[in-house]
């Protein structure tokens, strides 16, 4: 028996990274602004990897991730803000209740994922994309209609319960679970569906079951991430989760992350989530400083950030269709027995 198995190594590295960031924060090198960017980047990691389970590993082109995020976000937000009023409590039960709220947000999103998955997974490719996009819009319209959760005003006054440690913990656990799913029987079934749905059905893979499973897993983590996100921003708004949302953790950005990172690679999603989150902040700062110079007769809008994203997406698709990482993974995320079997070209 090896003492340092890869799973343990993963946790040790993660712990080291966590301690490093905490020390840098307490020394004062990382201020609250940087910490917020790190928080958003971590949440984007969960979102991108969970969308990758559906789009990358199972090959089902879903555009409805914003819907799942919204369901999780609003479930958790309503629980902590309106029902339990967690923000006003004393220190101890606050965070345990918050964890329960986040998990419940994930569970409700997963249930919605199953309900959406069963009828719509009979469809393929473009049709599935359109149906999931329609689902996302239906969720948005539905939230707009419910006055209890704030309707078009959004849900305000959410307590800031997502601390860095909490988000880090959730991200690490999510990556760990998704990594294990990818290299399990379920993951193999998902990949076989991606490669050829008809052939995998012929060799006895229950394609409907695994597609619904992929949808519910992706939806669960999207819900968790959405719940964490609104507890960072202290605001939940229906437009955040609509197709046109330009926000950095919006559905479009997540889609861009998955395909730039590489569909079918958790590592790619992680890299793309971090890089694009930081890039987006840099672009914002760059635009601000350009505006500060007053060399143009007009102010440069924040929309240029999304223009850059769009161009990146088109260029990556044209010149490197498989994304940055393709379907390769970091070695730390690949189990030992898998590595022995691998022939080099994973």
């Amino acid at each position, binding site marked *: 028996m090896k003492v340092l198995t890869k799973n343990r190594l993963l946790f040790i590295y993660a712990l080291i990274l966590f301690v490093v960031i905490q020390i840098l924060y307490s020394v004062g090198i990382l201020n609250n602004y940087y910490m917020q960017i790190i928080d958003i980047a971590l949440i984007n990691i969960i979102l991108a990897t969970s969308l990758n389970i559906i789009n990358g590993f199972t090959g089902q082109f879903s555009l409805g991730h914003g819907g799942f995020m919204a369901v999780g976000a609003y479930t958790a937000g309503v629980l902590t803000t309106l029902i339990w009023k967690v923000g006003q409590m004393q220190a101890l039960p606050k965070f345990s209740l918050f964890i329960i709220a986040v998990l419940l947000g994930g569970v409700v999103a997963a249930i919605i994922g199953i309900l959406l998955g069963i009828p*719509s997974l009979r469809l393929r490719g473009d049709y599935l994309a359109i149906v999931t996009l329609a689902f996302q819009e239906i969720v948005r319209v539905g939230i707009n209609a419910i006055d209890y959760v704030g309707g078009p005003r959004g849900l305000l006054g959410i307590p800031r319960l997502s601390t860095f440690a909490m988000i880090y913990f959730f991200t690490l656990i999510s990556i760990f679970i998704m990594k294990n799913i990818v290299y399990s029987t379920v993951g193999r079934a998902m990949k076989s569906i991606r490669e050829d749905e008809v052939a995998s059905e012929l060799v006895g893979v229950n394609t409907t079951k695994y597609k619904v499973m992929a949808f519910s897993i992706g939806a669960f983590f999207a819900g968790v991430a959405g719940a964490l996100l609104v507890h960072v921003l202290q605001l939940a708004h229906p437009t955040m989760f609509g197709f046109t949302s330009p926000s950095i953790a919006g559905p479009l950005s997540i889609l861009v992350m998955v395909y730039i990172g590489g569909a079918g690679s958790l590592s790619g999603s992680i890299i793309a989530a971090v890089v694009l989150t930081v890039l987006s902040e840099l672009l914002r700062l760059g635009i601000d400083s350009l505006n500060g110079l007053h060399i143009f007769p007009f102010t440069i809008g924040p929309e240029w950030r999304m223009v850059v994203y*769009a161009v990146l997406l088109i260029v990556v698709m044209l010149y490197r269709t498989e994304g940055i990482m393709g379907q390769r993974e970091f070695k730390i995320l690949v189990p030992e027995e898998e590595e022995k079997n691998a022939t080099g070209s994973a």
Partner: protein
Amino acid sequence: MSGIFNLQQLINGIQLGSVYALIAIGYTLVYGIIRLVNFAHGDFYMLGAYAAYFTINFLMAQRMGQNTLIVIALLASMSVGSLVAFLSNRIAYRKLRYKPRLSALITAIGVSMFLEYFSSAIPAIGPSYRPFPQFISIKDFNIGTVHFTNYQIINVSIAIVLMIILTYIIFYTRLGMAMRASAQDKDALRLMGIDLERIIDLTFIIGGALAGAAGLLAGLTYPRIMPYMGIVPGLKAFIAAVLGGIGNVVGAMLGAFILGIAEVLGYAINSIVGEGIAYAILIIVLIFLPQGLFGKKTGEKV
């Protein structure tokens, strides 16, 4: 007839349906030939609306007559729509013709994002709403209890004329024959010595022109334009194309009118019902009638 289901709603529905129909034709033509859901198609419509907006504002300053003005605005919006459609095909979609279909779809989303955010980033257009100039004096017509304006008449008649021209092109010209043939069998088409890429270019140009014209018509009747206005009508026009059986031009037109009328009736019942009705129709159609109302049933090739 009183209540919700009256003739007035029917007229409003036909008018909304004519806008959807013009967009849906572009979707269905492109999908029929290269099997691509062109997500950017709704943005060609948006650009058409802005082209009309700038043309009309410029010409109104020159004190031009109403009739010439509307013809020039129509030509401007159609040419901008077709130019952008042609360029997006050449720059973004052409290289991905023989790659997996999904990558073309993602590129289409990228093109759509680019057109929306680029136009809202340009200072001349800007991210906020703009009022569309009402350059024709409004005339009201009342027949019984039904009320409509000359804007609605102009709108529907332009749409119908364009649709008749398109139907003529598709069914009675050599270009239309080539387009129908390329939807059937691309290899045979090439063997007959027809340049497939040229046919695809022309398909994009025709689709883009119709979407641009739809932009002008929508600007005339719903006089508020913005860079993100194309997304929802684009999606709904695609739903209309699916409803009519995608790849089928006449089906797309009929589907668009059905969807427009259903949506107006839904809005008359409740605004939330109206907003969601198109999506509900989409899900029901795809589950129970995946080939659409007028489509052919196709098996999957293995």
